[in-house]
């Protein structure tokens, strides 16, 4: 076995909402090495999206225990923008609208921050157009307000445009496939596959196996009630598709029964 560099290490992570008792994530462990693609599957309410947000530093959650190391550094105290500049990226399940702010103005700032550089507007415009083209988005999107008036599919594609532009080391895709028709799914998957490299890792969060036909994962994890209950290769996703989440739930119940 060749030596692997861990990019993300989540150890015994416990997360809850500030004004609630019950934890949403309950002792989760996950290691993603450089260059790997991991799929995280699970039924609704299992805590997948919460994990995605906590990794990116969403202020609405409270981490009560555990640690998250990214590139060897504990990032739990860092602001979302610090994490982004380190190369962490979250493709949102529900991308936010920012009225009046053009994609070009927004992403030029993001680009300058990510790469700690200054880029002239005209220069950046050319760069942006290349990435829009990759995701088959019209150049006119550059001048449109961020996500405002976009269809569901356009919003998801635009998330991958940002992924492509910002070249993160770890990209977390939070249900990017939901609400996409098959053509859009292919475009998005091609965009992601084109980004795969020995340095870059992906955590693909999904409810369905479908996207994994296009983005082949190295590992599949199943999350139920706030922790990973099963891990395996791509075949696990197919088993899930076939047997449904009740299958893992049943196994889980069996395992914890006295």
């Amino acid at each position: 076995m060749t030596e692997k560099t861990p990019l993300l290490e989540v150890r015994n992570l416990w997360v809850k909402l500030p004004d609630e008792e019950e934890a949403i994530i309950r002792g989760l462990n996950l290691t993603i090495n450089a260059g790997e693609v991991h799929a995280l599957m699970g039924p609704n309410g299992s805590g997948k999206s919460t994990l995605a947000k906590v990794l990116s530093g969403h202020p609405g959650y409270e981490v009560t225990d555990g640690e998250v190391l990214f590139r060897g550094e504990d990032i739990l105290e860092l602001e979302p923008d610090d994490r982004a500049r380190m190369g962490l990226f979250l493709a949102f399940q529900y991308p936010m609208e920012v009225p009046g702010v053009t994609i070009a103005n927004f992403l030029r700032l993001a680009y300058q921050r990510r790469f700690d550089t200054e880029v002239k507007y005209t220069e950046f415009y050319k760069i942006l157009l290349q990435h829009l083209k990759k995701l088959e988005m019209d150049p006119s999107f550059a001048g449109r307000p961020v996500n405002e008036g976009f269809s569901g599919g356009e919003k998801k594609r635009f998330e991958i445009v940002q992924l492509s532009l910002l070249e993160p080391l770890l990209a977390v895709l939070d249900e990017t496939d939901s609400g996409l028709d098959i053509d859009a799914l292919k475009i998005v998957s091609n965009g992601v596959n084109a980004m795969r490299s020995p340095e870059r890792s992906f955590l693909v969060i999904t409810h369905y196996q479908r996207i994994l036909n296009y983005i082949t994962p190295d590992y599949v994890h199943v999350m139920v009630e706030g922790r990973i209950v099963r891990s395996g290769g791509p075949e696990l996703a197919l088993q899930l598709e076939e047997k449904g989440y009740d299958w893992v739930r049943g196994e889980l119940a069996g395992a914890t029964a006295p």
Partner: protein
Amino acid sequence: MAQPDILNLDQDYKQKYGFYDEIKPVFQTERGLTRRVVEEISYQKNEPKWMRDFRLEAYEIFMSKPMPSWGPDLSRLDFDEIVYYIKPTERQGRSWDEVPEDIKRTFDRLGIPEWERKFLAGVGAQYDSEVVYHNLAKQWEEQGVIFVDTDTAVREYPDLVKEYFGTVIPPNDNKFAALNSAVWSGGSFVYVPAGVKVDIPLQAYFRINARNAGQFERTLIIAEEGSFVHYVEGCTAPVYAEEALHSAVVEIIVKRGARVRYTTIQNWSKDVYNLVTKRAVAYGDSVMEWVDGNIGSRVTQKYPSVYLMEPGARGEILSVAFAGDGQHQDTGGKLIFAAPNTTGRITSKSISKGTGRASYRGLVQVLEGAHHAKCNVECDALLLDEDAKTDTYPYIEINEKEVTIGHEARVSKVSDEQIFYLQSRGLKKDEALTLIVSGFIEPLAKQLPMEYAVELNRLIELEMEGSVG
């Protein structure tokens, strides 16, 4: 600088605008307001009798009117502490070389001569009570355009001034209009002959330098039939911890088929009480547009108005207010529909931050006979903090049946999710907020010439600085 540069977050008001000059004025009146002070101002200006009488009458009206109690808190404004007239220099320059060195340096720092060279048709620069520089490009002068300070106009164009001065806003209109009428000094006089279109802006810049100063400029714009002019004003003042008062009166006459656009970027320091009366009368098929940006001051009360006097007249009022810590921006607009088939629109966008309060106050009045008047009012308020406040006072009086009046008001808060989204792309929290705010005012910023849109954006960035605790 073709694009608003959101990244310039490193300057602050004090350094950029809040400096002051150690200048000994050539003359100033004693503190406080008396009949003698009014007489002294008139004497200093060597005015005709009619103007002196106008001032003295206005003074009596000012003394007899109570302080308005319906608006923001003005209790810290002490009329006895204000110096009503401060003359910084003996004469006015037509070239910047003729302006005293210290004062010229100030305007250089504010970038005025540079802007003039780049894209303005003419510039007036007022320093405390007097206009120290005034110039109009030859091209416009040759076409009969007049652009001088109002004191000069009283001397050189007495008939024109006498015909219109105080006709749109008489001294008894309100207490501060009376005050201005009594002690006015400086301001611009603009006359655009019929059919002449001044297609690049005229700009006036108002600078308060002295402590406890009162600045009372008086502006009169006459646009003859079928003409066009865009007048822009900007203003700043040093940061003192004492109150200053700025109380202007602006009167505009828009004749048939003419169009006047009046843009303000108000950036007074936070010691200034800014209590201004602005009004235009618009005749047949003319267009009057107010673009009113209020960023600075402690308290601003300003409701630019348009009286639509003849069929086809149109009034547009765009108002942007930014109320930061301790500021109260009480702004809006008034449209008076006095003739059939007149149209108008008021669009107000306000941002409240920290303990700031932004109030929209507006009047839409349709007089009897003004059938088929159409009016739309839209107010958008954005709250950035828990303590920030906004309120709306929309007054609507309709005395005619066949009219179309729309009113919409929205209040929104910057959501944590929006900020998180932008932060997750590497933007710092204050950059994210600034971006959201600039997006909020974008519909108005795009109405401005590029240079002013950039300026407005930059001023708002300045206000947003350090907004993340």
